[in-house]
């Protein structure tokens, strides 16, 4: 990656004798959304906090838009926007005051476009304690974007949100990406990562277990693709194994196979349907999900 804005090499972070992050490496290209996934305690938040300059690393090197988070915190603050996993503002602070305050400290003028875009115009006179969880998240996102950062860090941005607020926030993250802002996203939510991220890394016990695009990560696993078929006559096919695919069962009129080579299996099935003089009514090819891949990795880690 030649245009990497986030570079992490051999990052190590210890808490006393416990090593939370054990020498991880990754790069994120400009304008991409990079997801850090993993179970609780995997080291996601610690990694992000080192990048945000909130924690001192114990080894390795980091760079965010050319700034070393450990050495150039002032420069970092100009280039980085952060929405923390657990952050708050004083309960009696009004939304307008929060925006004014952060603008003043960042040395930027008030961005009306952000207020309109994130739909917080109606909230300006409200106190922070009067906002809903979703409104608070939106406000923190606006605060993180006030300095027009090159890199935006989002730590569990949709945790605790209802379906509607979650979808709205996803839409906002997509529009942030369209502006060319690089996004680092830590999440537990596999479907969120699949939906939003260009690249992901799954962290387990402080190490990157696997990384790549969501498609690459899921296809690299041992989970098979499920192929389900319903035909008009329903009389053909012996319901047995096909080359490279294992027959699983018959359910609700569908025959189901598990295949490690979906393309070859589908070709073979279609050939057999023709031979039997039947007609395909419905054919479903279900790739293993990121969640299945994640569980597989977790299982492997336990062994």
């Amino acid at each position, binding site marked *: 990656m030649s245009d990497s804005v986030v570079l992490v090499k051999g990052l190590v972070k210890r808490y006393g004798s416990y090593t939370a992050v054990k020498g991880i490496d990754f790069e994120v290209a400009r304008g991409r959304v990079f997801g850090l996934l993993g179970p609780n305690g995997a080291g996601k938040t610690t990694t992000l*906090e080192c990048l*945000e300059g*909130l*924690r001192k690393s114990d080894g390795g090197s980091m760079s965010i838009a050319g700034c070393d988070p450990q050495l150039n915190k002032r420069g970092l*603050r100009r280039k*980085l926007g*952060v929405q*923390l996993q*657990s*952050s*708050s*503002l*004083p*309960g*009696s*602070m009004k939304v307008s*005051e929060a925006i*004014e*305050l*952060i603008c*003043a*400290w*960042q*040395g930027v003028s008030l961005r009306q476009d952000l207020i309109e875009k994130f739909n917080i115009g109606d909230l300006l006179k409200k*106190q922070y304690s009067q906002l809903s969880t979703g409104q608070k998240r939106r406000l*923190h996102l606006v*605060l*993180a974007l*006030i*300095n027009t950062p090159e890199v935006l860090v989002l730590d569990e941005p949709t945790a605790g949100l209802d379906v509607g607020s979650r979808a709205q926030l996803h839409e906002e993250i997509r529009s942030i990406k369209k502006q060319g802002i690089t996004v680092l996203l830590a999440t537990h939510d596999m479907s969120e990562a699949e939906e939003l991220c260009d690249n992901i890394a799954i962290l387990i016990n402080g190490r990157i277990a696997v990384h790549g695009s969501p498609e690459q990560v899921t296809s690299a696993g041992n989970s098979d693709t499920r192929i389900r078929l319903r035909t008009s006559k329903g009389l053909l096919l012996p319901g047995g194994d096909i080359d490279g695919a294992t027959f699983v069962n018959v359910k609700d009129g569908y025959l189901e196979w598990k295949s490690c080579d979906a393309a070859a299996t589908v070709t073979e099935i279609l050939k057999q349907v023709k031979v039997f003089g039947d007609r395909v009514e419905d054919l479903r090819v279900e790739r293993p999900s990121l969640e299945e891949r994640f569980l597989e990795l977790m299982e492997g880690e336990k062994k």
Partner: protein
Amino acid sequence: MNAFFKYLFIQFKMELRDKGTLLNFYLVPLVFFFVMGSVFSSINPFMKTTLAASMTIYAITMGAVMGAPTPIIKMRESGTMRAFKVNGIPGIAVLSVHAISTFLHLLLVSAIIYIVSPLAYGSEVPKNQVLYFVVLIVFLAVNIGIGMFIGAAAKGQSFATMFSMIIFLPSLLLSGIMFPASMLPKSFLWLGRIFPATHALQSFYGLAYKTKTDLNAMFCLFVLIVMAAMMFVLAVWRFSSIRKNEQM
């Protein structure tokens, strides 16, 4: 600098909106002042003359020692410090703004007590008004320093309340603001001299009201100045070390 003053202005306004702050900084000290003003004026003629000084000591100790640590602990516990830090507001600015804002609120309450005491209860106007305010400002600084230190040092709200009570109650009972300290047993008299309230009362009596004092009033003022400097150094030191540990 502009950002700092903007923050100070917002903080001051926020505290006026906050019920807890209003209670600690204004309501409780002023209600206590009005009640004790009536009691003192009828039972102890000497206390009545220096009512403004006694009640100012009470109000400042109440506001700074009991009230000031709470918002700092809340900010530490709720992640506000971290949110401020990642948005470019340094921790030391948070501490400074809280200290100055508390100073302004308590100066306002002290001014109310100073003006109302002679009008409502016929208490004496200090003979040296400049020195009255010098003592007042130094005493404010000591107590805000203590409040900031408790806010930075306490592990949680319950610890902070405990620390605050350890300072607040003896200040009230052993300094001489409720009854003459000379009535106390000797050991308590000496114990009372650990607390800034005792030195503040002696300074007010000797320097502002020009009355006889148990201790050298100028020396007491010097002790207060040293205490103020010490408490601010301790508060900043403690705050810096918890910022490292708590990653604020």
